[in-house]
């Protein structure tokens, strides 16, 4: 493996965040190395594999048959008593269910085409420092310890976010800001093959929801996210209970088992320090309502790659310079996501009775608006119809 001893930018992790950062830094002419600890990029997935059209537009990527498993035309949202609201999109598919391990590799390929170097099964074990400043990483590659230098390190190491912590940034998530997730990819299940389904309720999925994301006529990712202040048991037990209660799912076969932690809050004011930028799950760049993070990570990564390149051109890798990234990310995504954290807080305060009541007032179009962090006024107006929710409604406006 022809790894150099020094790069302009080293990126830790080859998920969408890392590849996004590598893509933009390489495009700006930087010498870029991406190090992925796992032996296969994109696997094992910690993801329901849904990508909306709007997220794709933000990412600036085109649909590719290689990674599209299913086109999604709409969504059905269920309240605890089984009532539902359905939304179908009129102008073509609203999104896709992907094959994540193909998708992530395609993103890595994009980074490589732009000029970056990617290396799998290369674990970063530590940051290296010179005169107190981060100047590269120590890696374990094929059992050998190596040091590689870089002017800027971008930490895209996922929800673990060990690198940022080593650099002195506090990225530990409070339990209220992270969902505990479990998922079965199942086949021979009776599902709606064209729409995603989401099930809400404090018994079904406390502090989260159950999802069914179709990957084929009879195949789907069936998963759950719960949060610990609310959930009394393990995520996987809630999920098993949900599947057991439905004959159309119970009869199916499990072809993959996944789990993971999903940040749903804890947005960071500052995601930089001298010589280091944090992106993606590691920086909690995730939609706090549905837990989707692929688009967020790629966008955060691209901004980080841009700022790292500018820093290198200006020969200034200080926290003061890298702060540009904080500003750009907050303008582009942070403020929106922050509003969605508010919405999440309101939603988690609703009882099952409230949810059953609410579903009658919601129209499909409203849900699209809310998911895009607009129309909160309308949502507040609905909540105000129920006297005990008036106080809660005020949180939204």
């Amino acid at each position, binding site marked *: 493996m022809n790894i150099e001893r020094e790069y302009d930018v080293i990126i830790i992790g080859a998920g969408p965040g890392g590849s996004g950062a590598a893509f933009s830094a390489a495009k700006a002419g930087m010498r870029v190395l991406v190090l992925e600890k796992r032996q296969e990029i994109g696997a094992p997935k910690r993801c329901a594999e849904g990508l909306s059209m709007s997220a794709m537009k933000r990412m600036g990527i085109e649909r590719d048959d290689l990674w599209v498993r299913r086109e999604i035309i709409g969504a059905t949202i269920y309240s605890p008593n089984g009532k539902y609201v359905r939304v179908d999109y009129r102008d073509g598919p609203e999104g896709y269910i992907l094959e994540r391990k193909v998708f992530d590799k395609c993103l890595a390929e994009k980074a490589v085409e732009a000029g970056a170097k990617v290396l799998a099964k290369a674990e970063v074990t530590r940051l290296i420092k010179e005169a107190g400043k981060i100047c590269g990483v120590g890696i374990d590659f094929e059992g050998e310890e190596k040091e590689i230098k870089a002017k800027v390190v971008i930490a895209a190491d*996922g929800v673990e976010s*060990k690198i940022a912590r080593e650099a002195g940034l506090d990225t530990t998530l409070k339990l209220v800001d*992270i969902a*505990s997730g479990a998922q079965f990819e199942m086949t021979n299940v009776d599902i709606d093959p064209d729409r995603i389904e989401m099930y809400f309720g404090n018994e079904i999925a406390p502090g989260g929801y159950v999802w069914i994301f179709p990957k084929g006529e009879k195949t789907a990712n069936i998963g759950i996210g719960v949060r610990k202040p609310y959930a009394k048991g393990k995520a996987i037990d809630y999920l098993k209970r949900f599947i057991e209660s439905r004959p159309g799912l119970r009869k199916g076969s499990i072809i993959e088992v996944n789990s993971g932690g999903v940040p749903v809050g804890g947005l960071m004011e500052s995601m930089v320090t001298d010589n280091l930028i944090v992106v993606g799950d590691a920086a909690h760049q995730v939609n706090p309502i549905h837990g989707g993070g692929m688009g967020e990570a790629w966008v955060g990564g691209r901004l980080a790659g841009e700022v790292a390149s500018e820093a290198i051109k200006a020969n200034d890798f200080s926290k003061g310079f890298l702060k540009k990234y904080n500003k750009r990310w907050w303008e582009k995504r942070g403020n929106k996501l922050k509003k969605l954290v508010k919405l999440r807080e309101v939603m988690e305060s609703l009882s099952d009775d409230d949810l059953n009541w609410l579903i009658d007032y919601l129209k499909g179009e409203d849900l699209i608006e809310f998911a895009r962090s607009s129309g909160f006024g309308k949502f507040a107006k609905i909540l105000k119809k129920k006297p005990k929710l008036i106080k809660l409604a005020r949180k939204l406006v």
Partner: protein
Amino acid sequence: MIEIDKKKCLRCSACVGVCPQSALTLKEHGIECSENCNKCGICFNFCPVGAIRMVKK
């Protein structure tokens, strides 16, 4: 200290993200716990698949 049930652990490293002591690391053979562990039990509570046990040591 904690003990990881390797038969249950999916190596998703969700526990690593919630550990306030930064005591957990995902290694080739699974999750490793360092001496920094202060037995707070957050990882035990959080593990999506119930692969973590608290043990007296």
